[in-house]
Every structure is written in C-alpha cells, then in structure tokens.
C-alpha cells in the first residue's frame, strides 16, 4: 500500500539524488546552488517528518514539507516550493483518497502559490514552465477519462517537454534574468527539479 509519507520520501530522495545535476544547471545561469538548496531543504524535511506517524494524513504532511522547505532552503526555491506545498496542503484537507481531480486542484493551488509569491507567468523560464504544462496535460487527461496514474504520466511528459522548452527562451524572472539572451540554450534548474519530483511521484505510484 502507498502512504503519503512514503511517497514524500521517494520524491524528496529523488531531488537529493539529483543534487549535483541541479546545481550544475544553476551554475550555468544562476548562482550554482539550486541542488544544494533543494537537498538541504528535503534533508531538513526528512528530519521533521521522521517524527510523524507513518500514516500521517496528506494535509499535515504537506504542511510540514512546506514549512520545512521555507525554513531551510535559503534560495528563491524555498519560498516558492514552500508556498506551493502549503497551498496544496490546503486543498486536500479532510480527504483520505486523492483522485485525479483533487490531484489537479492541488497542483493548481501550488501553481497559484508560486505565482503569488514570484509574480511569474508561463514562458519566463521558471519552474512554472514545467508545472503549468503539467496541469494542462492533466486537465486534458481527466477530461479524456484516464486513470489517475495515466493522468500523472501525461503530466510528467508535459513537464519534461516544458523543461526542454525552457532551453529555448530568455529568463525574465529570477537570477537567470541577469543573463538576458545568454540564458538561451540552458534549461531552467527549477523547472528541472519540479519535473524530477513529478517523475518520482509517478514512478512510486505506477
């Protein structure tokens, strides 16, 4: 059986495993710390969730993740992902089963949180360029009557495409925006870490 806590461990571990890859990406167009930030964040989160019950509800879990990231990441990804997890946590309050519609509502709340925080839109070469396509793909998949895991598969594929797309555009938000046109050719670290998380979740649930 899958538990929220187990899923979260898998997602966090996937990010930690990609630490140096994410850092290298950020080295090219940022300050070279995204992997370090995210790994520190999830290691701190792991400590906080270690004391939680193994069958802890998703809402409490996601709130703990959000607060943990906020207090430990240090970079832009901290307030951004932190807000995202907190907002997603709000959507699943009281639910014991997460169906595709709820999952998409959680993703949308996360996206809205990231936008409230960072004021970015699609196409500015940020994590949103993975997450918004993922949400759009989920929407189509849900309407096509696909299963939850199928919906997630489509979301992952869209996020991966989004990461590829970030290579072709100029950064206009975050540190990479200092490079202007020179940011072209490089994929966005945050879009990449978002996709790593979705992939890990898919691999776990599949």
């Amino acid at each position, binding site marked *: 059986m899958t538990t929220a806590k187990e899923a979260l461990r898998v997602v966090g571990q996937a990010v930690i495993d990609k630490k140096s890859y994410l850092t290298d990406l950020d080295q090219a167009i940022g300050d070279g*710390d995204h992997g370090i*930030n995210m790994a520190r964040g999830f290691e701190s989160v792991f400590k906080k969730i270690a004391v939680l019950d193994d069958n802890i509800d998703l809402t409490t879990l996601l709130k703990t993740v959000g607060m943990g990231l*906020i*207090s*430990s*990441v*240090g*970079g*832009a990804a*901290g*307030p*951004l992902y*932190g*807000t995202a997890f907190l907002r997603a946590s709000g959507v699943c309050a009281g639910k014991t089963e997460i169906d595709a519609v709820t999952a998409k509502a959680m993703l949308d709340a996360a996206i809205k949180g990231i936008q*409230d*925080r*960072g004021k970015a839109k699609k196409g500015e070469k940020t994590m949103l360029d993975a997450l918004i396509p993922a949400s759009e793909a989920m929407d189509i998949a849900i309407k096509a009557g696909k299963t939850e895991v199928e919906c997630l598969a489509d979301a992952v594929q869209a996020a991966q495409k989004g990461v590829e797309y970030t290579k072709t555009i100029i950064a206009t*938000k*975050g*540190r990479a925006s200092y490079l202007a046109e020179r940011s072209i050719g490089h994929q966005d670290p945050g879009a990449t870490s978002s996709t790593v998380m979705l992939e890990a979740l898919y691999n776990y649930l599949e």
Partner: protein
Amino acid sequence: MVGIVIVSHSVKIAEGVKELALQMARKDQLIIAAGGTDTGDIGSDPMKIQAAIEAADKGDGVAVFADLGSAVMSVGLAKEMIDPQLAQRVCLANAPIVEGAIAGAVEAAMGSPLEKVLETAYGARNMEKQ
C-alpha cells in the same frame, strides 16, 4: 517611530547597512539586520525575517529593505506568517537596499510615518553618483 528591517542575502551586507544607517539616524532608531540563512550562509530566511519584523514594530509599522528577488519573496512569505494586524503596517520598500535604507532610516528617525519613510526610500533610487 517606524522600525527598519534589512533583508540581505549576505549577513555582512545586512549588518553593514545597519551600522551605516545608525550612524546617521538617532541612536534609538530601531534597525534590525536579517541577513543570510539560519546558518549564516548566503541566502534568506523567512523565519528570521518574521522575527525581525516583529521586533522592529513599536506600533508605527516597519519598512523592510531587501536586496534581490528571492529576498523579496522571503519577505512576502514572512508577511503572510505574521499577525495580519501587524502585516498591514509592514511594507517592503521599492528601493535599493543600501541607499534606500539609509535615507529611510534618517526619515524614520525624524518621526515620519511609514508612507513618508517609503517615499523617501523610493527617492533614493535616483541618487546620483557622479
């Protein structure tokens, strides 16, 4: 008196700005440095910022100065975490961190209200250097 909070990615910058600003403001002007992460590394820490804002408010509000985009986001988050009553009188200055904080601190020390402190700080954007 309006309190001042300095949010820099760098502990050194936040402390240096505090020192410079204090030199020119009244010595009882509240200026709190909230630089770096919780471990003192380069970055920003919403919790540290939250605590700084709470300590800087004496009822007349707080003008917050930040250096880069991620510090700005951390301030936004800190504002969501504090008491909503207090959050209403906390404002991020749309101003350069060093020049704005110095001008803002002098204005605050004169007893000006938050709006005036923010306006003066904003004006520091156009400080000529030649």
